[in-house]
């Protein structure tokens, strides 16, 4: 199998779906000749023509609102928003319109759109690194997907495009180029709603997603080598639908859980996972469910400051040690 980066796998997934389904069109700022800020759409206009890849005016609410209309008009729009922070300018269209169209029309109108956005840390400062997943996960009618590996990136974007409902597809931009990983040659999709156990373990479960999967795997190696602790790493892959069963099964086995994400810990999506575990696995738990996330601060631009706010492998290692020693 060929090795690919996340961004190459994304591009390949977009390309396959565009080739498969003529209704798939891309909309975004500077995604045509320029190929997008992170080159996700590079070459796609040349391959599929101008009518399939649209450079949009600088207005994120419009990109989403027009995508919603285009979906009702029979297309399968994939909207790129340059940074997830810009999604805030489209919240009314996403939350009040896209999420509710099917429900409010008794199923008569639907909104099969994908809204893709690079997100999270890795430089950019308070308004270009926000972890926005909690906003969307709370909204009935939206699906929320966050890939962590090249193979998942490709399989999940394809599933998202084929899905009949609005999907918020958040791409951890700091790992666009790393990890590189094997991506199957044959056609495949990764279904929404199925978590992945990335590493089996017996002593503690780390429930995570996105860029923190890589950090978790790194932490697991350290904990195995230095402490003899075998950590099981569960990548939820989709926040909505959330694969409760896989999480519960893992915690039942390990009796200990840390929920780990890059987003601000306070009222972050990790609270849902932790609250779920604390309720459902109460009798299994040997120690409290811990959460590791960012401090309650904007993410500063200077690398030294960003590191002081966002969590990383070392933060997780401390938490797991604390948990096992509890």
């Amino acid at each position, binding site marked *: 199998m060929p090795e690919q980066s996340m961004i190459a796998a994304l591009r390949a997934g977009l390309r396959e779906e565009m080739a498969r389904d003529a209704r798939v069109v891309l909309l975004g700022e500077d995604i045509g000749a320029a190929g997008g800020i992170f080159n996700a759409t590079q070459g796609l206009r040349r391959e599929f023509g101008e009518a399939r890849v649209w450079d949009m005016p600088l207005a994120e609410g*419009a990109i989403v609102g027009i995508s919603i209309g285009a979906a009702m008009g029979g297309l399968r729009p994939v909207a790129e928003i340059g940074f997830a922070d810009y999604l805030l300018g489209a919240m009314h269209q996403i939350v009040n319109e896209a999420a509710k169209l099917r429900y409010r029309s008794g199923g008569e109108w639907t909104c099969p759109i994908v809204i893709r956005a690079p997100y999270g840390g890795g430089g950019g400062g308070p308004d270009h690194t926000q972890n926005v997943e909690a906003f969307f996960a709370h909204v*009935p009618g939206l699906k929320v997907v966050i890939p962590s590996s090249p193979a998942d990136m490709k399989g999940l974007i394809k599933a998202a495009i084929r899905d009949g*409902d609005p999907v918020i597809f958040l791409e951890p931009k700091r790992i666009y180029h790393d990890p590189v990983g094997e991506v199957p040659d044959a056609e495949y999709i990764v279904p929404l709603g199925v978590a992945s156990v990335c590493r089996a373990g017996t002593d503690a479960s780390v429930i995570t997603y996105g860029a923190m999967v890589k950090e978790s795997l790194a932490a697991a190696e350290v904990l195995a080598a230095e402490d003899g602790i075998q950590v099981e790493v569960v990548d939820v892959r989709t926040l909505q639908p959330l694969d409760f069963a896989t999480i519960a099964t893992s915690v039942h086995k390990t009796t200990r859980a840390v929920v780990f994400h890059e987003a601000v810990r306070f009222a972050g999506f990790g609270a849902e996972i932790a609250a779920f575990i604390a309720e459902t696995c109460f009798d299994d738990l040997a120690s409290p469910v811990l959460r590791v996330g960012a401090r309650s601060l904007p993410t500063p631009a200077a690398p030294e400051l960003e590191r002081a706010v966002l969590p990383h492998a070392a933060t997780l290692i401390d938490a797991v040690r604390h948990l096992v020693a509890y």
Partner: protein
Amino acid sequence: MRESDHDLLRWARIDARRLSLDVSREHLLRWYRQMLLARLVDDRLADLRAGGYASGGASCRGHEAAQIGCIAALSIGTDFILPYYRDLAAMLALGMPPRAIFLNQLSRGSDPISNGRMRPAQWNSRALNVISASGLVGTQTLHAAGIAFAARIRGEAAVALTFFGEGATSQGDFHEALNFAGLHHLPVIFVCENNGIALSTPQGTQMPVQHVADRAAAYGMPGVIVDGTDLLAVIATARDAFANARAGKGPTLIEVVVPRLATDAPDPRDPVLALRGYLLSRQDLTDAQDERLRADLGIMIDAALQEAVNAPSPDPATVAEHLFSDSGASSRKEA
């Protein structure tokens, strides 16, 4: 349009010849029937609200000719309609049955507009190509641009017709929608039903220009002002806009200037009275025929209302239906 302009405008100057419109008696009577139907249904809705049997929804009184004139120019089944809460007359003219309106107003389980899920008047009908209306003012203008965009890409003949009030033009969505539609010469018709007031806020407290149509130039599209109580003038204007849209000449912003009539008092600006007067003057209608028409419509409407009153409330067991598609791998249970 400043508040006072409403008084300066001269209403009810309906005249097909002046407009060089070739309309038959059958056409005129059909439109008159639509106007009357809207008025009579609107009256019933007002009664329901006054009686405390229903809440929500807004009267279309005064807006009938504006709405029906635009609907008269479209191609049902091909074109898309993106209405707002005030577009009762448009819905009835399209063919939405009064039963549906009443079931919706009373939030019955068999409400075909939203299954009892939305407040009244968030219109919707897949069969009629009416896009489900949001309760948020102005958002539909972007959806209209998106539908027209899809039609362009798919090579379909559809035009998107969207309605909104002058208050809605203060929203950024309006700007973004007109910009995009103008940029790509999309087949959209933006109809602003300018009644001079948004809830309590007069136009002069919303915007510094006299006419909404004055803004069309900023989007490279024609802006047309038309007396929205003159059915034939609206039809003539809308037909031009549709013809342009279908010919690939792009969008039009139509400002239909309308009065917001009180529910109870007769008003010289009333578009129903105006059309009636015109028909009488042409001898296309007699007083007796008019009475008969009203009586027939009244009987039909009352039957529809009775049916809705008797219809059962929504069944809570259905509440989770239609949140997501249940097709394929991503079907799911409620979280």
